[in-house]
């Protein structure tokens, strides 16, 4: 088991900067996720940890040991590839035993360790199959077993679930988490799927344009995004440009061209992110926080509009409300039966609770 310490890492391919001045410390035994859209530099970072790329600048350390230019075969990391990269000419047993064979571990021990790990991933009865005869989920588990059996210091997972169908993905999510807990290995998980990131991780690093935007626990990232990119990328949200107006008695007041009245926001760390004077600001409010009012009420942050679309998704109902000047806002409620669905075209009032709004700066590109 190891900690991973990346200090001011930069990776350039020709003129393209794939990763820019990245600083990260990953703790021992932690399940750490790199989350971001494709091309954001998360896989490049993972490959620098695995040793397939060497950083242009900066250092990679495992437990204070400098690994920056150590070749991949000497790093003792276990990697699961997006396409699993199973050796097609070998059986399940041979695939899993490969790393042990390279380490010159005795036949008997190899056998017992392979059997043990295949037992853990519940593939013991497939031990002599050719890998091509396995289903996608089974291949995935072989890849996991192959990475785990060498008892790596760090487990690296590169979008391991993206080739599976939705139901299998759910199942494998729990499986991976169970194995990680069982082995207690420091794990780095790369994904573009926010649900995977939120449900599995101890901590998440959100990437965009080669830069790490925010590092935090899933709830920090969701509830206290540092900028509009993080707010929009993780979960659903409504975003509106705002300008600061004034501040009194712990309430900050903002103006927005999308709303006909001032917006009041609690002046707390939860509601207002840090920004520099003069930065463009954005207000984010999650759809589940938007309250549709039964009767119009003249409290703070109450606005009027008309229902433009009602979307039924099963567990919840999305209601899109169009305001006078055309701006749309989405409210999400749990499904409370057909009688509570609004009709399209109905005029409604809604409230943006002032302790649920988050004002944050726009992300720099």
């Amino acid at each position, binding site marked *: 088991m190891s900690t991973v310490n990346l200090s001011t890492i930069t990776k350039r391919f020709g003129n393209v900067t794939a990763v820019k001045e990245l600083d990260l410390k990953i703790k021992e035994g932690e399940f750490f996720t790199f989350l971001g859209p494709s091309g954001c530099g998360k896989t490049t970072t993972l490959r620098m940890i*695995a*040793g*397939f790329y*060497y950083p242009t600048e900066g250092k990679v350390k495992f437990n204070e040991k400098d690994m920056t*230019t150590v*070749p*991949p*075969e*000497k*790093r*003792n*990391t*276990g*990697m699961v*590839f*997006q*396409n699993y*990269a*199973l*050796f*097609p*000419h070998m059986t399940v047993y041979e695939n899993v035993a*490969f*790393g042990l064979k*390279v*380490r010159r571990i005795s036949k008997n021990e190899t056998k017992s360790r392979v059997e043990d790990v295949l037992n853990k991933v519940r593939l013991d009865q497939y031990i002599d199959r050719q890998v091509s005869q396995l289903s996608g989920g089974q291949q995935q588990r072989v890849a996991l077993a*192959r*990475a785990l059996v*060498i008892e790596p210091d760090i487990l*690296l997972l590169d979008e391991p679930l993206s080739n599976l169908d939705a139901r299998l993905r759910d199942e494998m999510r729990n499986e991976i988490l169970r194995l990680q807990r069982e082995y207690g290995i420091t794990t780095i998980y790369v994904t573009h799927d926010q649900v995977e990131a939120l449900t599995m991780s101890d901590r998440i690093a959100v990437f965009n344009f080669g830069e790490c935007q925010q590092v935090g626990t899933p709830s920090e990232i969701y509830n206290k995004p540092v900028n509009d990119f993080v707010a929009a990328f993780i979960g659903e949200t409504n975003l509106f440009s705002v300008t600061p107006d004034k501040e009194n008695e712990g309430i900050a007041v903002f103006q927005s061209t999308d709303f006909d009245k001032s917006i009041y926001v609690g002046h707390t760390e939860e509601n207002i992110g840090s920004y520099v004077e003069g930065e463009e600001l954005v207000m984010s409010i999650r759809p589940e926080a938007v309250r549709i009012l039964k009767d119009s009420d003249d409290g703070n942050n109450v606005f009027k509009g008309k229902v433009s679309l009602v979307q039924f998704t099963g567990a919840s109902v999305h209601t899109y409300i169009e305001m006078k000047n055309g701006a749309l806002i989405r409210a999400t409620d749990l499904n409370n039966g057909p009688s509570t669905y609004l009709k399209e075209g109905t005029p409604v009032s809604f409230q943006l609770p002032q302790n649920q709004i988050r004002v944050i700066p726009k992300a720099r590109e």
Partner: protein
Amino acid sequence: MLNAERRRTILLLIPIVLVLVGYVLYPSIETLFESLKKNGAFSLQNYVDFFGSKAASNLEALWNSVYISLLSVLFSALIGIPLAYIFNRYDFPGRQFFSNIAIMPIVLPSLVGVMAFMFLYGEAGLIPNALKDLFHLSEVPFSIGGISGILLVHAYTMYPYFYMTTSSALNNIDPSLEEAAYNLGSNRLSVFWKVTFPLLTPGLVAASLLVFMVSMASFSAPYLLAGGFRVLSLQIYFSKTNGDLDMAATQSVILSVVSIAFLLFMRWFQNRKDYRMASKGIGAHRSEVSNPFLKWSMVSLGIIAMIVLLLPHVTLLVLSLVPEGAWTWQTYPQAFSFENFRLLFEDTNIWDPVRNSLIMAAIACAGVFVFGIITSYALVKRNFIGKNLLDILVMIPWALPATVVGMNLILAFNEPSAFSFGKVLVGTFWILPLAYFVRFIPLVVRSTNAVLEQMDDSIEEAAQNLGAKWFYTFRRVVLPYIMPGVLSGSLLAFVQAVGEFPTSVLLYTLGNRPISIEIMNQLRMFNLGQAAAYGMIQVGLIAIVLFISYKFFGVKSENTL
């Protein structure tokens, strides 16, 4: 900074570059220099002679080569495309069987094929004489020779290029594309012209260029059938045997320029137009033929095609059973026995050429096997400056007509050079294995490339990640993975080397004369039976190799070209 990866790439490249420069590039340059020399001094006189009025035969030969090639393309296309369309788009009794038969010409090595055609349709051939007897004519009604003979042989041996590319293109077309066109209101004809045909064009153009190049290079057919008719590949041989090496070099350069121009054009075209199907999981769709008249006419077409296609093979088999002296003045052979095959194993004089061919082909095959693996790995999996150049260098022996390859080697190694370790190679045993090696480099590299390109980089990375060093990874992961491709390529190179004629005729010595040369000797002595028996050995070898490739390596026969 020179890191381990970079060092390894350079180490891999050194032997590759040495071999390619020494045995491909250097001989070509020698030929070019030779063509620019007259009586030991630099001059353009040879080219003036070539295009000038002094030797009109050269220009005539170039023109003949080009127009025979164009006609060969036309005839091959006219046979190959409709046959492919019928066999792949309509379902009728025996379809699968007929479509397997359709590629039978590829198991006939060129010299053997030409020989079979002579026996069949030549002046003394079986078919013309049978017709003569049948209708009590005083003369044979027709016989092949000259242009008609060459064209017939070309059409027969080269139409599979069209047949195979069209078949595979047709099977790769997603049926839903045509269905979409029908759904949008097109009729059958406009679907064919507006959707199907445009999707076939890249393949057809590639096949046309291929046939054009192959028939520009064709040697055996003109050699046996041309009579007084001149083609460029043959002119080179005549110049060489007349001792006019300068002119032979000049003719080689001109033929090479035409061929390489076509190769470059082909590469450019293939890169420009690449319709790759976006959809996965394509199912073949064939329309069942329900009209009984149409159905049975298709079946009879299949049967006729089968007879015509297999006739050369059958003739070869029958003739190989005719012992020496048993068929002299009679129209048809009189006696049959296994005498020729028995002699093969008992008479060392007759067995020697077979042994020579097998040994030399095996040496060349071992060479291309090792060289092919290293080169293909470097080309597909490594990045370095000048990769495109290396790729072209590897493909040059493929673009160059065999006669030119032979000439290049003569001109490079008829004097000591560093690449022959200071020895003269021409006139020794080693020149032929070397020629075979050079000839079949592209074949093995291409078949290895095809598998290696399928292998995702992550496979190697996974092995590395699990702690395996580069060489261990290469040995235990990469090699087993690509082995089917390499083996099938090398085996094919082996059988082709066994039958190789054009370079053999330029480079053989009495001591290492291969099968093809001995076939010519036997023909000259009118011992047709023994010649046919040699031919049967080659056909048998090719059939075995194709079977092994198909059965054990899962290589489809259409990928072997």
